[in-house]
């Protein structure tokens, strides 16, 4: 935001930061070998729903996007609307590399069609052999960084201790959000 925008109060929604999404595909190896966490075979891209005026145009664009992605990648892609009114693309693929590539593709397509500022986060669930519940890595498109998210399953509680452990373990490999006050969760994602 330039000085002029500050002076005139013209705050724009931020465009996504430089793409650092692919770091998760290498981090996956550490997650598996050191923490026994395996990818859950799915990932989600969350973006803000649109105002009614744009709805018809958006609806067409998104359908086109879905078709484009389906023809370009072998992953299965579904669309959901969650209870908070946010839109999700849920990708299912057994191969983690393909999963990340498809998520990247969706994010790119959304940006190309002018939905960049509405792009919120990508969500990568992991499952442990010895633990119940999932461990998530959230990629914030606006921040261009990852942060861990471990919901305990009851209400909106999360296991902060484990999250900090995940941060410590993967600090070297992932661009992790250093400002902990921005580690917002994504509860009850439709994955």
């Amino acid at each position, binding site marked *: 935001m330039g000085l002029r925008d500050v002076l005139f109060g013209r705050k724009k929604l931020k465009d996504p930061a430089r793409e650092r999404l692919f770091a998760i595909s290498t981090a996956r190896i550490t997650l598996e070998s050191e923490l026994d966490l395996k990818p859950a075979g799915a990932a989600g891209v969350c973006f803000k729903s649109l105002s009614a005026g744009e709805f018809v145009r958006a609806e067409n664009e998104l359908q086109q996007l879905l078709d484009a992605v389906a023809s370009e990648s072998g992953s299965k892609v579904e669309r959901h609307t969650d209870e908070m009114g946010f839109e999700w693309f849920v990708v299912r693929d057994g191969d983690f590399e393909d999963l990340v590539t498809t998520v990247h593709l969706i994010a790119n397509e959304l940006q190309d069609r002018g939905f960049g500022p509405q792009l919120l986060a990508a969500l990568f669930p992991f499952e442990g052999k010895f633990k119940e519940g999932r461990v998530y890595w959230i990629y914030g498109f606006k921040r261009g960084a990852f942060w861990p998210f471990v919901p305990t399953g009851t209400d909106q509680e999360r296991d902060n201790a484990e999250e900090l452990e995940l941060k410590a373990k993967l600090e070297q490999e992932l661009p992790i959000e250093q400002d902990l*006050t921005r580690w917002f969760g994504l509860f009850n994602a439709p994955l």
Partner: protein
Amino acid sequence: MILTSGLLGLLYVAFGLVLLQFVGVGLVPMLLIIVALAFFQYYTSDKLALAAAGAKVVSREEAPQLHDMVERLCAMADLPKPKVAIMDTPVPNAFATGRSPKHAAVCVTTGLWERLEPKEVEGVLAHELSHIANRDVLVMTVASFFAMLAALLTRFGLYAGMFGGFGGGNRDSNNNSVPIWLIVIVVSFVTYILSWVLIRTISRYREYSADRGSALITGAPEYLMSALQKISSQITLIPQRDLREVEGMNAFFIIPARVKEGVNELFMDHPPLEKRLAALERIAREMGRPVS
């Protein structure tokens, strides 16, 4: 923090020099200005601090539990009840302000209230009430007043030494005025830094006293200990809210979310956590309380 304070000091010195050199204010008016500033700071400290932090004074209806807690502790500490304020930030913190126990306020953040157990909040509140009981605002105002005075007098001393008098009209032969300016600035700045270190030392000592006070008021230092550990751990920084709830909300905040960095600085004049915990542990042992 060190840089900020240093810069503030530099600004203060520059301000004094400008007043002295160009406006031609004499020693006595200068002293009056300083005294007036100190008094202003002292008399408005409760409102000033609350306003600066963006805290809101809450009535009994708005926060009955908090009011109950403060009342209980005040009864224990034999203090008049201060104003109770809440600051809406997820960072757990608390502070007390006010020139005397009768004109005091305690403030807790919503983060502190949500993250800590009631017993722990009580420990923190008792710590803040001890600050009020110990009249720490008065002590710190006096301490910083002398620091300001020291810096000012150094400058005047040098000034007088160079030009032989406090008056104006000394602009006749100043081919070497640049080095003198330099010396004046350096000496004043060093004086200021020294007083600043002294103030911090006093401030730290007052913190230990307030910790001890809290232990005596609640009779249970272990809760203050666990509160301190919780407050200083990283965990309390992680938000509990959902990304979708907060998305786009920053645009509507009057004060940007960055303010919370300033809140963290309230802790900067405090002794290191380990030392405070060790001191509290000793007190706990003296009182025969369980120490984990």
